[in-house]
């Protein structure tokens, strides 16, 4: 082989490598940029809400409206409203979701399980505003007899009875909003628990059955212990969804400022998200700052809940991998 030919070959190889190198660097760079964009977006949410909402924490008393004098006084009833509706939603949705997840993963034969899973996915696909419309125009009316019944029969019982005071004549209570929320968070809890239930090792299940366990005992002794952390985080993700859900509460609940235990009352405090949706139209700069500040509180709260949920899942996955 002569020297010039070898040189030319080397040059062409270099050239090819160099060209590939440029392409690779551009591509890798843009992929990295996209990843960083996500981090930036998340940081941006916090930063922009903080900039816009910072002054909302310390406004003169009259900005906080007729019912409160400070930011704390303004946001506290909203927090109560947010948590009341979310807790009602969880109490209803969690047992139902676990049941449905068990139907899909362990109880139903395969040809029923697939359509069942599809139906639950459909629940997730329905837009929240349609749930709100359905809740406001249909469900609220249908639940009026239930409100009356609860007030008449459970109302007189001490302690628990406090929850069922004077009912809302149109059924637009926190209870109704919580029921609509429950339907909306049901799919996410079901999806996650179904996933962890179906990951239970087959051998554990068969061992339990071989020892003479009934099906429910098998579920209680092998499936639940194995899936516990997944179930906890599913509930927390459901809670995160319920805390931030806007439209169902906005459209269903009749808003007031009475802080009471009565969950079927005519005027209960609304949630943070719903309050923003109801008030943003006033567009006075001061009130907007306050609203953004409440939004920041909501963001940090849901961030914390989701963070904990994911952390629990991640920890258990690591433990399983070992």
């Amino acid at each position, binding site marked *: 082989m002569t020297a010039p030919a070898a040189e030319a070959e080397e040059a062409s190889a270099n050239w090819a490598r160099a060209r590939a190198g440029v392409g690779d660097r551009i591509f890798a760079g843009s992929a990295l940029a996209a990843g960083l964009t996500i981090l930036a977006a998340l940081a941006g949410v916090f930063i922009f809400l903080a900039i816009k909402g910072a002054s909302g924490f310390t406004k003169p008393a009259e900005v906080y409206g007729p019912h409160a004098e400070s930011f704390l006084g303004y946001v506290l009833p909203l927090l109560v409203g947010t948590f009341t509706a979310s807790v009602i939603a969880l109490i209803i949705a969690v047992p139902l979701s676990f049941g449905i997840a068990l139907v899909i993963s362990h109880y139903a034969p395969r040809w029923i399980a697939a359509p069942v899973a599809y139906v639950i996915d459909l629940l997730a*696909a329905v*837009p929240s505003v349609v749930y709100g419309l359905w809740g406001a125009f249909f469900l609220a009316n249908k639940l009026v007899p239930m409100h009356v019944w609860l007030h008449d029969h459970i109302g007189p019982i001490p302690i628990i009875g406090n929850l069922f005071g004077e009912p809302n004549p149109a059924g637009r209570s926190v209870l109704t909003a919580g029921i609509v929320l429950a339907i909306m968070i049901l799919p996410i809890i079901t999806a996650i628990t179904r996933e962890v239930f179906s990951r239970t090792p087959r051998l554990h299940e068969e061992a339990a059955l071989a020892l003479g366990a009934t099906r429910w005992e098998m579920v209680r002794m092998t499936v639940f212990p194995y899936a516990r952390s997944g179930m906890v985080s599913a509930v927390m993700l459901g809670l995160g969804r319920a805390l931030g859900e806007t439209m169902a509460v906005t459209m269903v609940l009749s808003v007031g400022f009475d802080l009471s235990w009565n969950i079927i009352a005519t005027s209960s405090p609304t949630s943070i998200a719903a309050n923003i949706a109801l008030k943003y139209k006033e567009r006075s700069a001061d009130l907007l700052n306050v609203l953004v500040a409440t939004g920041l509180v909501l963001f940090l709260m849901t961030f914390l809940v989701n963070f904990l949920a994911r952390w629990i899942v991640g920890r258990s996955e690591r433990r399983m991998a070992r």
Partner: protein
Amino acid sequence: MTTLEEVQTRVHVPLVQPRLPRQAPAVVGVIAVAFGALLLVLGLGIVGAVILGAVAYLIALPVWSLVIEGRRGATDRLMTGLIWTSFGIAVVPLVSLIWRVVSKGAGRIDGTFLSYSFFKTQIDQPVGVYHAIIGTLLVTLGAAIISVPVGVMAAIYLIEYGKGNKLAKAITFLVDVMTGIPSIVAGLFAFALFTLIFGPAYVSGVGGSVALSLLMIPIVVRATEEMLMLVPDDLREASYALGTPKWKTIVRIVLPTALGGILTGITLATSRVIGETAPLLLIAGATDRTNMNVFDGAMTTLPVLIYGQNLRGDAPAEAIAWGAAFILIVIVMVLNLAARIVGKIFAPKKG
């Protein structure tokens, strides 16, 4: 002799526990249905009859089982019943909601409803939701244009480049956390961002797109990530062995293999954000006219229109709201269906 007696009494222990006959649940079920029907005839409402029928089933079968099979069997029967009941309860609202939307909304749909906006040039001009359909499509398209490149490239970084390093782990974790951001917070973010830049009264379609993309990106990342993980390493290594640079391997080998799943994920993400209301309420506003310019002026979308009609609350407004809800549900269902079909078409060929 005493030992023989002992043996005889011991032999009497049964080897099999007594069981209910196989048809027991069906028999009790039929009786419960008959009981419910009886209550219905006696004048109880349909809801009450169904509830009491179900309760009757849930009590009767475990009690029968308790008598024959003992406590453990009874618990099992009861839990089985409860678990199936939970599924039944979840289906009720779905059926009720879809029936409601179809029965109230389908009748409102006609040519004028789809081709007129709220803006009247004559006093007796009919109204429709054309402006909201256009708004929905433009805002969602904008969100997809932002989210798809960012989401897909980020997933490529996570799987192909950053596999296992600290940054990739942090991004994966934060993407998971990001899926839980409340939609109204995304709206507030876009609102804060755009009003800081363009002044306090700013509303536009593109602001809505930015807010929606914040909700859409995590879904796209997760879907793409999962599909890229399924691409076998053999394919990548075969490509490298032929001297193909990494980026070309990704573009020509990895992405086409995963295309079906990625497109499905994108379609599902679109169907998820197309029904979002709260963020658009804040930043995209509402208008009666058809607005084709996403960078300037308010833009009504279908969910915002439904909310607005709900606030007005009179009969014609309610009819429009149900009609718009029907269109929205149809769009979402079509997107879901399309996602499945696309996934089938682009699925990697076997063999």
